[in-house]
């Protein structure tokens, strides 16, 4: 690879990293604002205009709190836990195509950090590692309730990963590729996968809620009924990192859902826009930039949806959660695979 390409990749990765952190930071603000709106309150409005500096104030508060490590805790693993959670959360946005291709000075610049031919599996693998952060933290606290919280989180994540993987398989059967760039390119215009995979999307959405430990599946940290969960013993910025990792996960899962089911950077009447501009280079760049905006609008809508659900639905009971995962979503996902396979065969047969 040329050094210019390498430099560009490095800059792009840094930018994506920054955007991820920025969106996660402001997700905390919007979560509180949306909660306030739904509950007919005002929400944070002290720090800065309309409370816009609230995330900074929160971060400052967390950083300056006493960094406490319990005496009998396994010190190394206690520190490692939040780090693993954060690392894994930020890793997965590497393969997501946030936009198509820009042409800058005759050079084709893809708006994707790394293109691997197994992008979907990469995301799935990284998501399946997310559980280690919780388990290590919960165990290293040397507290029975933390351990129980960690086990609760881990069994939930493992259970919902299966249905999630099976709903992904239907998408892969449809697209015939594991590369996210390829999947995004196949959904050009308004030809989105959601029209072919409504059931698969629903399963994926429910599993995404469970994987990110969001309400109605936030059993790992149901602060009102069970005590905290895996982060009971955590305080200061270590707790902050766990909570922050959750928001990064929401962003990443929203991006993955937009890419897999909602056409990534594609938007309706894309080709009309391309043809309306006579200069091909300019046309390509305009379409790409509008595409990036479309991608981020989709991501923000999903993030809003996550928050909307949180302040609307009550929490599941744990046995109901397990039942939903294993007895309903799992068979439904297999049914979805069979339906998709049948559909593909029928399409070949009739058309």
């Amino acid at each position, binding site marked *: 690879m040329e050094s210019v390409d390498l430099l560009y990749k490095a800059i792009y990765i840094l930018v994506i990293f920054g955007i991820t952190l920025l969106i996660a930071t402001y997700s905390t603000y919007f979560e509180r604002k949306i909660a306030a709106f739904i509950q007919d309150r005002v929400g944070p409005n002290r720090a800065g205009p309309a409370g816009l500096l609230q995330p900074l104030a929160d971060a400052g508060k967390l950083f300056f709190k006493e960094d406490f490590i319990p005496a009998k805790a*396994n010190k190394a693993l206690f520190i490692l836990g939040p780090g693993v959670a954060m690392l894994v959360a930020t890793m997965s946005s590497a393969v997501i195509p946030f936009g198509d291709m820009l042409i800058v000075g005759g050079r084709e610049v893809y708006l994707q950090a790394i293109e691997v031919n*197994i992008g979907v*599996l990469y995301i799935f*693998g990284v998501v399946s590692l997310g559980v280690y952060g919780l388990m290590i933290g919960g*165990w290293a606290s040397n507290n029975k309730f933390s351990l129980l919280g960690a086990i609760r989180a881990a069994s939930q994540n*493992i259970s919902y990963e299966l249905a999630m993987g099976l709903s992904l398989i239907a998408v892969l059967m449809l697209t015939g590729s*594991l590369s996210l760039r390829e999947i995004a390119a196949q959904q050009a215009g308004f030809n989105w996968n959601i029209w072919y995979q409504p059931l698969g999307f629903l399963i994926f959405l429910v599993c995404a809620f469970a994987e990110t430990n969001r309400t109605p599946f936030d059993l790992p940290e149901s602060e009102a009924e069970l005590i905290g969960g895996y982060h009971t013993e955590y305080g200061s910025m270590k707790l902050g990192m766990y909570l922050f990792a959750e928001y990064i996960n929401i962003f990443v899962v929203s991006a993955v859902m937009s890419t897999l089911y909602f056409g990534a950077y594609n938007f309706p009447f894309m080709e009309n826009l391309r043809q309306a501009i006579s200069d091909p280079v300019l046309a390509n760049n305009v379409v790409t930039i509008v595409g990036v905006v479309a991608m981020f609008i989709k991501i923000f809508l999903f993030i809003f949806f996550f928050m909307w659900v949180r302040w609307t639905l009550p929490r599941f009971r744990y046995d109901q959660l397990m039942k939903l995962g294993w007895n309903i979503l799992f068979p439904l996902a297999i049914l979805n695979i069979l339906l998709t396979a049948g559909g593909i065969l029928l399409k070949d047969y009739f058309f």
Partner: protein
Amino acid sequence: MESLFFFLASLTLLCALMVVISKNPVHSVLFLIITFFTISGHYVLLNAQFLAVVNIIVYAGAIMVLFLFVIMFLNVKKTGGDNAMKASTISKFAGAIAGGLLFIVLISALKDVTVAGYNPDTYDSQVGMVENLGYVLYTDYLLPFELTSVLFLVAMVGAVMIGKREVGESHF
């Protein structure tokens, strides 16, 4: 590339050793997970990305989580603690003999192996890609592949049978 391989290989060996040496079983499991990662690194060096990721999903992402589950619940204390696992002399001897026998088997199996050198004419860099792997699995190795899936099905049925709560008096 060469130095990367040696770095990965030494890291793999070090982590694998730490799995055995660690006093704390949870540390052992975590080192085993790192070992799986380094092995995945080797797969990537061999241009077999699919294998690398599947190795992480299946072993690091699923099986080792269950390992960690069980070990965290058992909460085995470090050796030397109040309820340390005491190994008798006989079991130490038995372990040494069994391990030595395994070592002999490995040596005898690998004694006459020659490294098939790298031939640029016949070498296909795409051989590890997911398309080629799928093609080979569903044509040349179809029967073993299907047999393996039947084996998995049997294991799954067995697990369900064992885990199922029976009505009435339990006999085991």
